[in-house]
């Protein structure tokens, strides 16, 4: 009787273990499939151009000649500094505008709030090329072509709907009572936001900011179209190594590795905050 019970108990446990193993294997496989192109790009950057077009192989003698060639041809640092300036500049500006907007929508909603939020999101559905010419003409007339300020403005506008939406969701999850208690104690709106709301929703704000930085860093359409030499960020740097005529695979891979390295390291360092922010309020 005892042995029968123990066999019965072991069976679901064993099936739970095998399910766990299966899920782990599946998870790792998916991660590997997603990561493989990046790994291949990094490896190709260490090959010669001839080895890069030869039959795919993991065995080769690594060389830094592509990195050297890439560095000689164009100033990586200038492009990287532009990327840092526009990605962080636009994120800062977007947060400055989005925090008061999301606050008013979350805590002082009107009957038009939902419509406004949806309308904001709908602007993301327009293909950017549809407004390229008008924006190009405006930028030309106000002297914003090929300037960091111009790109910061465009990226801010591009990311604002997402930033407002995310912040709105985080603020909505905040118990109103805390803010009310503050108000009872005589806090002004500014103090309420600055000393109560922001510290309590900091993980959410951080993850929103990180997402905005990543989106701005990777943006290629506007950066290629609105900049030429002075304000061109790393996306333009990568594009300069792509070619339908001529073999540049190793150099393109080296340039791409250098372009994604800063944001990859940044993402790695902040992944804890990011995950915490994205799951903030998910379990109540």
């Amino acid at each position, binding site marked *: 009787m005892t042995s029968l019970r123990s066999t019965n108990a072991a069976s679901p446990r064993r099936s739970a273990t095998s399910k766990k193993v299966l899920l782990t294997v599946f998870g790792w496989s998916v991660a590997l499939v997603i990561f493989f192109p990046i790994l291949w790009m990094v490896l190709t950057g260490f090959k010669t151009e001839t080895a890069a077009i030869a039959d795919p192989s993991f065995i080769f003698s690594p060389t830094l000649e592509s990195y050297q060639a890439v560095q000689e041809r164009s100033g990586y640092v200038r492009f990287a500094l532009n990327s840092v300036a526009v990605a962080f500049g636009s994120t800062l500006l977007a947060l400055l505008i989005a925090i008061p907007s999301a606050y008013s929508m979350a805590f002082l909603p009107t009957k038009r709030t939902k419509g406004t939020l949806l309308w904001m999101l709908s602007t993301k559905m327009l293909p950017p090329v549809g407004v390229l010419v008008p924006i190009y003409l405006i930028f030309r007339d106000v002297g914003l072509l090929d300037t960091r300020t111009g790109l910061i403005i465009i990226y801010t506008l591009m990311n604002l709907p997402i930033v407002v939406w995310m912040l709105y969701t985080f603020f909505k999850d905040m118990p109103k009572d805390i803010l009310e208690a503050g108000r009872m104690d005589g806090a002004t709106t500014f103090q309420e936001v600055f000393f109560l709301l922001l510290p309590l929703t900091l993980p959410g704000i951080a993850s929103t900011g990180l997402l905005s930085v990543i989106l701005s860093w990777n943006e290629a359409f506007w950066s290629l179209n609105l900049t030429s030499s002075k304000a061109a960020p790393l996306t333009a740097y990568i594009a300069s190594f792509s070619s339908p005529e*001529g073999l540049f695979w190793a150099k393109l891979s080296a340039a791409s590795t250098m372009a994604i390295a800063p944001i990859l390291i940044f993402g790695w360092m902040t992944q804890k905050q990011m995950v915490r922010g994205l799951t903030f309020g998910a379990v109540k």
Partner: protein
Amino acid sequence: MRLARHLPLTSLAAAVAFAGQAQAETELTVATVNNNDMVIMQSLTDVFEEAHPEITLDWVVLEENVLRQRMTTDIATGGGQFDVMTIGTYEVPIWAERGWLSPLDNLPEDYAEDDLLASVRDGLSHNDTLHALPFYAESSMMYYRKDLFEEAGIEMTEQPTWEEVREWAGKLHGMEDDLAGICLRGKPGWGENMAFVSTLVNTFGGRWFDEDWNPELNSDAWVNAVQFYVDLLNDYGPAGASSNGFNENLALFSRGNCGMWVDATSAAGKLYDGDESAVADSLGFAPAPIAETPKGSHWLWSWALAIPASSENQDAAREFITWATSQEYVELVGETEGWTSVPPGTRASTYEDERYIEAAPFADFVLQAIQDADPTDSTLEPNPYVGVQFVGIPEFQSIGTRVGQSIAAALTGDSTVEEALDNAQRATERTMQRAGYLD
């Protein structure tokens, strides 16, 4: 009193400082494509700046299609972001007609304008005036593996025909592991598969439009040419031919995976370079094959440097483009980078230079191909357009790409050749009607 005494001296110092500043102030933004010849030009920036201390060069290098879109936006809106643009024979007449490019008349005598090859010069002129200076030019020709031809007992003819090529491809195909009888462009795009297919249609006796701009894409000549192309690639081409463009075929041929390849003459230097190519020792050259007519059997393309009318630095830009397309520049590249790296196809003097002829045994073929190509008379029956492998109208980019996609679908077996060409014909008719060419 003291100020008055020092005033002339101060003014002189200020004037010198100002003059120095003004002299170093001209910053030229040069937009160019990413290929070997342009990379060499970029690497010689210091040489130009040393000779012209009042000018500094700022480079914007982009992939060809991205650059074309970027430059079109800027020039059409008068953005003035670029002082020098790298454009091709397709854009020059169209942009010049709209007044977007500065005419390049009264070139200095030492530029030797007469030394430019006539067909290239004509392709970059509008109303008999140059609107861009040729940096390098190319045509198309056939590359083949001499070792395989010998082994298979094939003798290359002076002017191969497409029928012969099909027969040879059959013999070569599979002679070695992973060896395709022939490699040709299959990737859709007006500058990709359609550059090749247009020349094939030309030599099969077809044309894009009749004299009244009616498309002829489902004519017998088109059907025969495209059916021949599809059969040839499906029977004797490499696997996945529909995704192969210039780069992919260059990689395949230089690894020894193609018996023959018909493509740009600009590949010759790379295939002949033993460091980049495994077939350098057995490389053979021949003119592009012909069928019904030799007319339009090989293309003509030139990358050229132009000055947009919106540039504020016209004089400095002219100084730069006359330097970069001069005999002096050819000499400089020959001496510093080696004579096979010299930008080909633009100047007669390059082909008279013993150093170049010795280093580049393909020089004669390239020169002949470029001189023979006539963009104003490229089809058996008369046509209303200029261009061998393209039609010199603004609508062609979208038409060419659309037709290229239909033909790629026929190549992969998603549609028959007739269906593909009927679709292409209907789409082209619609575009031409909307653009006002047809009623």
